[in-house]
């Protein structure tokens, strides 16, 4: 019989809540309170997350975000700025000692991205892995991924782009040189795709989530059992929201 991991469908949350929930699951799992967990979620209002090593004011046009009702948050994972609007975001939290997780960080990126690729295959989308952290379809990015390891626990989260508005994205992100912004937008349009572009129709979130569930189950030979956040995790989420992701101090770091 396959090992059981927990599946969380936490729906839509704001930016700081979403990052606080992932952080809370990591801590709860590291304390042995919850099983390995796969979570699917989305963002409301839309938000930009920046990588741990990025500077908020270099990456994001704060005034444009306010104007468009877009939030922003700094992640605990490295990588680049991501505009989260029409997408499914996943996270996987699992002990770094778990036999199904590679000790080697690069290899573990590959195996977890493999689960996303398998999920895409259930939508008849053939994808390829572009190390270290991208998944491509016909050479265009459909998924970005980022991993951290803390408290002897792996957290990898990533996006599956369901639809993308490149113009809106660039109205919110800062570019190094405004003079080449139009060229950059045109380049990115050539380099990014979405589930909608690949299937010629907007697929519901639940359909993408079902495909991803199968992808994770197949890849790791586990059964994902639907569960809920525990009361410990709710408390930890509040704590991380109040002391970290919901604070200016955290989001403005590295200025």
């Amino acid at each position, binding site marked *: 019989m396959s090992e059981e991991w927990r599946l969380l469908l936490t729906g839509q949350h704001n930016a700081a809540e979403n990052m606080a929930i992932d952080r809370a699951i990591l801590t709860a799992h590291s304390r042995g309170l919850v099983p390995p967990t796969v979570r699917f979620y989305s963002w409301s209002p839309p938000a930009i997350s920046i*990588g*741990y*090593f*990025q*500077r908020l004011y*270099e990456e994001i046009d704060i005034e444009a975000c306010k104007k468009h009702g877009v939030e922003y948050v700094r992640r*605990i*994972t*490295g*990588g*680049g*700025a991501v505009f989260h609007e029409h997408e499914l975001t996943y996270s996987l939290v699992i002990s770094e000692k778990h036999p199904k997780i590679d000790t080697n*960080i*690069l290899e573990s990126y590959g195996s977890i991205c493999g689960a996303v690729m398998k999920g895409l295959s259930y939508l008849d989308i053939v994808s390829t892995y572009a190390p*270290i*952290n991208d998944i491509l379809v016909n050479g265009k990015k459909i998924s970005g991924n*980022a*991993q*951290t*390891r*803390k408290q002897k626990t792996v957290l990898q989260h990533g996006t599956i782009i369901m639809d993308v508005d490149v113009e809106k994205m660039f109205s919110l992100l800062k570019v*190094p040189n405004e003079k080449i912004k139009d060229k950059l937008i045109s380049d990115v349009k050539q380099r990014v795709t979405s589930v909608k572009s690949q299937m010629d129709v907007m697929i519901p979130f639940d359909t993408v989530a079902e495909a991803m569930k199968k992808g994770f189950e197949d890849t790791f030979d586990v059964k994902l059992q639907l569960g809920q956040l525990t009361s410990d995790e709710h408390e930890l989420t509040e704590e991380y929201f109040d002391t970290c992701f919901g604070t200016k101090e955290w989001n403005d770091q*590295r200025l």
Partner: protein
Amino acid sequence: MFFICGHLFIMKSQSIYKVPQGKLLKISLESDNKQHIKDISISGDFFAYPEESIQKLEEVLKKSLLEKNQLFTIISHFISSNEVQFIGIDAESLTEGIMRCLDE
């Protein structure tokens, strides 16, 4: 940008370096007349394990001589002795990013 502080010229400069086959590396540097690092901030879309190692490296680099070989040695030693793993940057590109601040 220059400031006069005592008898030293404090220079602030920045570099943005797309590491070949790697990630974007941004360095903000304060130096005394391009001789020693007074302060440094390393940012970008790279990965570092553990993440806190970047802040430690910034501390280690303070007061270092702005000389390519010395910087490379300090950074390489920091990576190996602290069991740090970088993805998208390495000792060579960090050295290059810092040295590019002097080109301004």
